[in-house]
């Protein structure tokens, strides 16, 4: 019912919560919310809530990148967050979300992976970002990307003892994070474009294009989502909207 109403409103140029089409909901970002993690962030975007935690482990580098750290993003759509989420291994939506967040950070070279080497070719730092969905009220991806970036920005690398064991709670330096890529999902219903969908709006949109943008407007990752196609001629305006909005969202990240 609410979904049909949300759709009719969009088609008539309005939104279910009276926002402008290109307006985000109020965003609240808290840093260092998890004492047991090396870095963390809580993001509340409207009523959507997400926590990202970073754990730093000592691991072995990949064979083709012996002198770089390892980076990995996972997401859990926990059953507490939505009646649609079920327990069990990550489903395709959780896997897709994690991989989009991963690419936005990896491809932009946001973390200086070369500075995460402990013993070249043998021991490096592995950066694990885990995204936990607490409440799904739409636009999980943009909230998750903000949470992951904020968590990385406050991540500290633990000290190692003389035998190379990680000393939890004792820190050596900050994680070298040098960029702030921002992911903006541009949503489409017919010829209407809008941002930051609520859960109702999300269930009726035709398609969306999620775009990760750097400080200098370079685009570092992109993914089309949703069940319908996008007219080729509309792509440029969607890219423009994402570039413009990324500047505003970046100001929220300290």
């Amino acid at each position: 019912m609410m979904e049909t109403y949300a759709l009719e409103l969009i088609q008539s140029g309005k939104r279910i919560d009276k926002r402008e089409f290109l307006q985000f909901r109020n965003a609240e970002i808290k840093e260092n919310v998890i004492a047991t993690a090396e870095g963390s962030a809580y993001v509340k975007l409207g009523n959507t809530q997400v926590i990202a935690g970073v754990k730093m482990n000592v691991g072995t580098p990949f064979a083709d990148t012996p002198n770089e750290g390892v980076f990995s993003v996972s997401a859990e759509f926990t059953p507490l967050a939505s009646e649609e989420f079920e327990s069990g291994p990550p489903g395709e939506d959780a896997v897709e979300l994690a991989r989009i967040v991963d690419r936005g950070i990896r491809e932009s070279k946001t973390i200086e992976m070369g500075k995460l080497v402990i013993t070249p070719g043998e021991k490096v730092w592995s950066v694990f970002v885990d995204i936990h969905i607490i409440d799904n009220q739409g636009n999980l991806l943009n909230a998750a990307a903000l949470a992951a970036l904020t968590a990385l920005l406050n991540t500290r690398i633990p000290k190692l003892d003389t035998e190379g064991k990680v000393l939890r709670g004792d820190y050596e330096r900050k994680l070298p994070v040098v960029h702030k890529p921002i992911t903006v999902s541009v949503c489409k219903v017919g010829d209407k474009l809008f941002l930051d969908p609520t859960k109702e709006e999300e269930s009726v949109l035709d398609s969306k294009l999620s775009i990760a943008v750097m400080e200098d407007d370079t685009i570092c990752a992109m993914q089309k989502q949703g069940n319908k196609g996008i007219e080729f001629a509309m792509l440029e305006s969607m890219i423009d909207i994402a570039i413009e909005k990324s500047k505003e969202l970046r100001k929220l990240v300290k």
Partner: protein
Amino acid sequence: MGKKTDSELIIDGIRLDKRLPDQTREIKMKVGNIVSANGSAEVAFGNTTALASVHGPRPLFPKHLQESQTGILRVRYNMAPFSVTDRKSPGPDRRSVEISKVTRLALEPSLFLDDYPKVTVDGFVEIIQADGSTRVTGINALSLALASAGIPMTSLVSACSVGKINGTLIVDLNGMEDNNSESDVAVAMMPDKDIVTLLQMDGMLTKEELLHLLGLAKKTCGKIYEMQKNALLEKYRGEE
């Protein structure tokens, strides 16, 4: 087939496999090679080979997965363990889960599944030899397989990869180019409608470069579309 390399991938405008920047590899298409399936196709882009088959429309169980108003499309993208230089352990990984999803979303807009309430159309893509651009090769094959299974569609879906190597914008990345690219973009379109159904990009591009690549992708998808139509005609002309 494509490892990391420090050497130049494009010299004087010619790629390592002698191609021009906007040139695809040799493309081969064959429809109806798997008799056990309702529809099937094989598509090769150079050394990348994808097999696709379609089973259905067929009843969907368990029943709670059924949609009363429409049929559904399910897609599995899978790479054979022997398709890559270092054996890939069998079964789904995170990458193939995501590619299965985006492949489904790339093809769904082309189908009239409303005609088949409560049933499923199951599409399977097997990459038997991988040398870059496997997801787009799989989409080309699966769209042909769906057509040959007689699933009503508004258009074929045609797909290709584009990207940037050593500062040059190129079409149809092979494995070596993919692993060493500054950026790669996967695009699927319904070329006769100018509708984009798959768009994935990673790496760094300015907006201008991105728009240029999208233009190259559109042109290339148009060519692939003609080849797909010919592959279907080839198959069914023979049967009359």
